[in-house]
């Protein structure tokens, strides 16, 4: 099947040269590389916006009694007297979460790197359906526009938290943010789900059907494995969110009672009877939990690739890495109940969810130890991408450990909805994934834009962000242990929270500095696009196939035939070879001095040739030594 994907170069020339206008090249592009860049830049823009939102609510949390007149200038009635209003605070938290999880770390991460790397690393001309791929981006773009649009409606954006639990989200009159803002949220998310599904279907079909000759599944780079499994998780979980949202829309706009029951608003009894808000939680978290792996797994895949390349060592435990990704994929579907330990669920059921949750620690630990073992005694090259990859491992460990606490029903009942949870997921999926994404940007920037990013700015960006993220999220563990609840507007209202004000101010300062550090990245990103050093074809001396394409992008990726793959992607520092890397496209016949018995995968003929070569070369080599 993969062998059919060969293309004679003459035929390719005909369809490589259609008339490209600005519109078809940059806007309605069907080329996977351009779509990847569109996803990346939109993702970065959404990331910056979501980060600014977080700085705004950090101002409120750090200095609840202080007035910042400049806020009123920009936000008008939402910050009268220079203080952010409670309604708007809730909107900020909600939209920050939604944008970061869905727009930045799902679309921005998977959308960018799956689109860029799946065809390039597998040796395909493009995606299974370039047209659907284009639609996927434009649905995403529309979703972003609508979500941003909700800041411009009278009643403000959605404010029920990114999980939009009913009844708050189901009753337009409940709070200001449940009105038009909520409707726009739902419309935006529906478009987003459609976009993700179109993307995911394409990724899966391309991986399974369009690999080049010789690229069997066990020769795929771990990046591709991660994107592939992420797409599978998406295909199985996003439709569930759609079903939940459809029922929510019926409750909001048609008066049904799927989620609503026994509700009194301002002294008025609502007609909705018999619904169950817990139903929403089940449906939502059946997506919601896999979603955190949709966010994390691509980052893990990118990290595997970058760590192996820059340690100049084969990835430790390639098969174990794949199986642990598969393990995470499967387990991600049977743990959603751990978000619901306090909903009055049957303790036995809680126990089951607790066990499945804790089992996830096993594949996660396998991955962590494999990263560390790959680094161990490697010839490490500390490129900015490598720094971010190591940063991901650090966050994955420190955030993952608290997952073991939270997965425990008995502990979770105390820690639920406190800052401990905020600290946990911001480290393990927020910071870790964003570091994976940044790692990918630094590593594949030369591939995307044909130029190099500035290393020094990269290091500055890394250290400020790395230290900043720890200073922001680490203290939150202690607040959570003290019982400080998340999503509260002012810490001055409750006696026991007051002592945390100084810590909050500290966190806010750290957040502001970390946010400012992103200027170094943005400058580096956009400046290098035009004025960066020209990139060589294979700047990181990497083995994977994307570095065999010309620096100048062309439609169809490779001029002439697509190269054949002869080996796995991790032949770094192979003993006996003169260079410390052997690209996947190098045939075994050109590396006689470094071939190992298992390289031939039972091909008797090849083994014979190798043995013959050895018997001819060995005696002379032995003489030299003597």
């Amino acid at each position: 099947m993969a062998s059919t994907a060969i293309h004679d170069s003459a035929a390719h020339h005909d369809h490589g040269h259609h008339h490209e206008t600005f519109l078809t090249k940059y806007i309605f592009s069907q080329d996977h590389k351009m779509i990847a860049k569109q996803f990346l830049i939109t993702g970065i823009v959404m990331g910056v916006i979501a980060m600014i939102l977080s700085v705004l609510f950090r101002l409120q949390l750090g200095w609840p009694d202080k007035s910042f007149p400049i806020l009123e200038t920009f936000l008008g009635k939402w910050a009268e007297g220079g203080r952010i209003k409670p309604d708007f605070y809730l909107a900020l938290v909600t939209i920050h979460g939604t944008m970061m999880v869905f727009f930045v770390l799902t679309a921005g991460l998977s959308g960018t790197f799956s689109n860029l790397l799946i065809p390039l690393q597998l040796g395909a001309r493009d995606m299974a359906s370039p047209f659907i791929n284009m639609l996927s981006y434009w649905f995403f773009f529309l979703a972003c526009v609508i979500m941003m649009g909700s800041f411009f409606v009278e009643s403000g954006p959605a404010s029920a938290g990114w999980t939009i639990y009913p009844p708050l989200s189901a009753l337009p009159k409940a709070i200001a943010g449940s009105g038009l803002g909520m409707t726009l949220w739902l419309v935006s998310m529906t478009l987003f789900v459609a976009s993700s599904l179109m993307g995911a279907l394409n990724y899966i079909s391309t991986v399974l059907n369009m690999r080049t000759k010789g690229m069997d599944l066990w020769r795929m780079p771990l990046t591709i494995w991660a994107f592939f499994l992420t797409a599978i998780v998406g295909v199985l979980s996003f439709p569930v969110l759609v079903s939940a949202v459809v029922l929510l829309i019926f409750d909001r706009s048609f008066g049904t009672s799927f989620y609503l029951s026994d509700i009194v608003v301002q002294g008025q009894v609502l007609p909705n009877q018999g619904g169950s808000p817990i139903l929403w939680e089940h449906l939502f978290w059946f997506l919601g939990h896999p979603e955190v792996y949709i966010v994390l797994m691509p980052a893990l895949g990118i990290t595997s690739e970058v760590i192996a390349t820059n340690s100049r060592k084969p990835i430790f435990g390639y098969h174990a890495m794949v199986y642990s990704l598969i393990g995470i994929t499967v387990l991600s579907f049977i743990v959603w109940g751990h978000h619901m330990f306090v909903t009055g669920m049957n303790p036995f059921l809680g126990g089951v969810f607790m066990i499945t949750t804790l089992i996830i620690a096993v594949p996660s630990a396998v991955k962590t130890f494999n990263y560390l073992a790959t680094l161990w005694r490697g010839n490490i090259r500390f490129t900015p991408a490598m720094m971010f990859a190591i940063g991901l491992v650090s966050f994955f460990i420190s955030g993952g450990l608290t997952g073991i606490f939270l997965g425990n029903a008995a502990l979770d009942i105390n820690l639920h909805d406190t800052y401990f949870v905020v600290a946990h997921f911001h480290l393990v999926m927020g910071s870790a994934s964003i570091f994976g994404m940044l790692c990918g940007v630094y590593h594949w920037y030369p591939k995307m834009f044909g130029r190099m990013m500035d290393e020094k700015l990269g290091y500055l960006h890394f250290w400020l962000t790395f230290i900043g993220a720890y200073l922001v999220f680490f203290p939150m563990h202690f607040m959570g242990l003290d019982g400080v609840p998340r999503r509260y507007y002012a810490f001055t209202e409750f006696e026991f929270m007051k002592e945390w004000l100084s810590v909050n101010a500290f966190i806010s300062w750290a957040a502001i500095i970390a946010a400012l550090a992103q200027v170094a990245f943005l400058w580096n990103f956009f400046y290098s696009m035009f004025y960066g050093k020209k990139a060589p074809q294979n700047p990181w001396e990497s083995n994977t196939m994307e570095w065999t394409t010309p620096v100048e992008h062309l439609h169809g990726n490779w001029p002439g035939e697509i190269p054949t793959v002869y080996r796995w992607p991790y032949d770094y520092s192979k003993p006996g070879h003169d260079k410390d890397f052997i690209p996947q496209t190098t045939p075994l016949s050109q590396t006689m001095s470094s071939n190992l018995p298992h390289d031939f995968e039972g091909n008797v003929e090849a083994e014979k040739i190798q043995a013959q070569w050895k018997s001819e070369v060995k005696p002379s080599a032995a003489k030299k030594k003597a």
Partner: protein
Amino acid sequence: MANFTEQDKANLKAKKFLVWLFVISSFMLFAALTSGFIVYTAGSVERGIKISLPQSFMYSTAVIVLSSISMHLAYLSAKRLQFAKQQGYLLLTMALGIVFFFLQLSSWTYLTQQGVYFVNPNASQSFLYVFTGAHLLHVFAGLMMLLNAWIGKLKNIPQVNNLFRLESTSIFWHFIDILWIYLYVFLLLNQ
């Protein structure tokens, strides 16, 4: 037709696979809705369908099974290059699809006559409308695909593409058929 390269055929294969994947994601939507029904209904004895299902469901089931057969015949005709037959069977499938559509709508009328409304304190009954409505959306999409395949042949597109359209349409149409049978059996079991 001569300029069909191996690459294009491989692409069609990948595109056909997309239809399968869409079927899977679509199935997940209904799996979620039906599990939602189970979770909801198990919550209290006052919930549940509590009526006997409309008879028209039986007729619509028969119609959609027949349409699946005619879809398969259209596909076989396309394979055997019997294009007149192919077009005829496609039209028949479309007609049966439309009949199914109206039978389902008539069952909604029946339900409202029984006092089972969409807006209902017993959401198990609202689910009846959600299941059939979401399924009808798929039927509508299937009808569009049938139309697309039919028009394709009218425009005399190359046989590779014609067959591709028929294959993907028939995958989807059989899925819609099986999906309805699943929903019907599910409802019968929860009656």
